[in-house]
């Protein structure tokens, strides 16, 4: 069983670490769902969603490396990370409807995290804020993709 560590969001680095954990967990959830025989009819779209979350990890790593600037390394004091921790263990035997509901909750929680973080980041790093906002909107789009399955 994979373990994920969702840190307190008290710094820019820890916000990105939280996001990386979200992406790692979410891609693993989709990989798990895509591998289940009972969900074979949705295998390809689920694999595509897993891949898209892996790609987002690369974007986050790049953001952390390229955008950090000591002039705006301010402590972050207004994000309560416990509001955004996702359920990472998919119950056994879920059908397509159950899988959609489980993954949909993950996408919506992630979306809230990214959109709220984006508001905080706006006063620190405008470019990072844009990236976080875009990710939040992608989560919403992913939820719509799930609904359409």
């Amino acid at each position, binding site marked *: 069983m994979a373990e994920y*560590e969702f*840190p*307190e*969001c*008290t*710094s*820019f*680095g*820890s916000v990105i*670490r939280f996001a990386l954990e979200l992406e790692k967990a979410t891609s693993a959830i989709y990989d798990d769902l895509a591998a289940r025989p009972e969900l074979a009819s949705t295998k390809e779209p689920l694999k595509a969603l897993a891949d898209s979350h892996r790609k987002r990890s690369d974007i986050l790593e790049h953001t*952390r*490396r*390229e955008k*950090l*600037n*000591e*002039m*705006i*390394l*301010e*402590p972050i*004091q207004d994000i309560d990370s416990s509001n955004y921790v996702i359920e990472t263990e998919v119950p056994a035997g879920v059908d397509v409807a159950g899988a959609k509901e489980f993954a949909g909750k993950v996408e919506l929680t992630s979306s809230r995290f990214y959109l709220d973080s984006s508001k905080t980041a706006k*006063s620190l790093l405008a470019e990072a804020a844009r990236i976080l906002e875009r990710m939040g909107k992608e989560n919403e789009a992913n939820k719509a993709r799930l609904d359409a399955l």
Partner: protein
Amino acid sequence: MALLPEVKKDYGRLKNYVNGEWVDSTSSKDLDVENPTTGATIGKVPMSTADETKAAIEAAQEAWEAWRETPPITRARIFFKLKELMEQNFEDIARIMVQEQGKTIDEARGETRRTIENVEVAAGIPSLMMGYNLEDGAAEGIDEDAVISPLGVFGCIAPFNFPAMIPYWFWPYAVATGNCYVMKSSSQVPLTQWNLFSLIDKAGFPPGVVNLVNGSREVSDTMMDHPYMKGISFVGSTPVAKYIYKKCGENGKRVQAQGGAKNSLVVMPDSVLNRTVSNMLASFYGCAGQRCLAGSNLVAVGDVAGSLLEKFVDASKRIKMGYGLDESVNMGPVVSAKAKTKVIDYIDGAEAAGAKILIDGRGAKIPGYEKGHFVGPTVIDGVTPDMKIAKEEIFGPVVSYLRMDTLDDAIDFIHKSPFGNAASIYTQSGKDARYFRHKVQCGNIGINIGVVAAMAYFPFAGYKDSFFGDMHGQGRDAISFFTDRKVVITRWF
């Protein structure tokens, strides 16, 4: 939260890098390199001898003729390769810095980025180093040219607070302009440069062009006395900066010596308080206050004093301390037991002088890091301009809170300081901001910015006792410092 992995537990005894090779120092005297968070010894640094330093300088001098004749674009290409290697090793550079210096991983990553930026700017040397000319400039049929030329061997004596970045304010520009280089890293934090030299070794610089000598004062004095050395760059305390400026002057060398600081952050009644407080936290507590751009005096002007203090104290209490390899940590320890004692002495002195300690960082204890040199955020109210704590450099996470009636009072207070490194104003008034930036005699001015850290393409400035010399590190100043102008007047019969 789990820590990011340390790159190594023990880095062993460091070698010098001379003439393109790693060499053991013959010195029998080593210093321990301590992790200031855990107290563990993570390496040993030799106190290299004068002869070893001379060998490095002579290797640099020998390499110089060929290096200065290497076309600038070819020299630049090696810097591109170095940049690539630094990007590949980005995280290791940052984590080693956390291990030996104590800063947080965010701070170390930010510093690594700034270090790379100096390599990027220096890689633009074919454009930066162009001279100028004037056809018929001397007389009809007689042209005049100014050619920018390198001078020989330069060196750097580096401080402990920015183990990666500060040497890179200097050496990439020196070497890109066609000089050769000898670096003495800080004996407190030698691992970062040792690690970066392993990348320099792979980048393709010819032997002797860049050299590293570990050690202490014997190395520095040998560099300043050696006739091959054309100039020295230094960053550290004001007394040492003065010593270096004088000694280099006596020996006919160029010198840029950055000294101490006592930076005031002035908050006007019309400032945006939430954003102001958040930004000031980074200035006062970033790198545990151990930077020459750190805020030290918080000057409240007029009736903002009460509400500002309340918000600032509340936010300061929420600063999370710990090992910088925990990404949620906001502030690490100071660099050594000696540094901690010095900071605590200043707080004790302020209390004895009648100031009120609103938040007291003297007893900071971090579970699991009992041997760490932690001083917590400290806010001292009731500080007056005549108190020692308002005048001297502390180099720790200590905030002296002062109240002034007018902006002019605040500026007068800033001007009474012997230092002139940085000052910031927080305001929404363009008029006040313009007045502040025009009036204040400091080299780095912040308008709603508390850490006025010049980018690689601007000089890192400093006035008064904060800087001794003419040309600063980074940017065009660096190009001027490491070169001279050769004027050529040409006539053809």
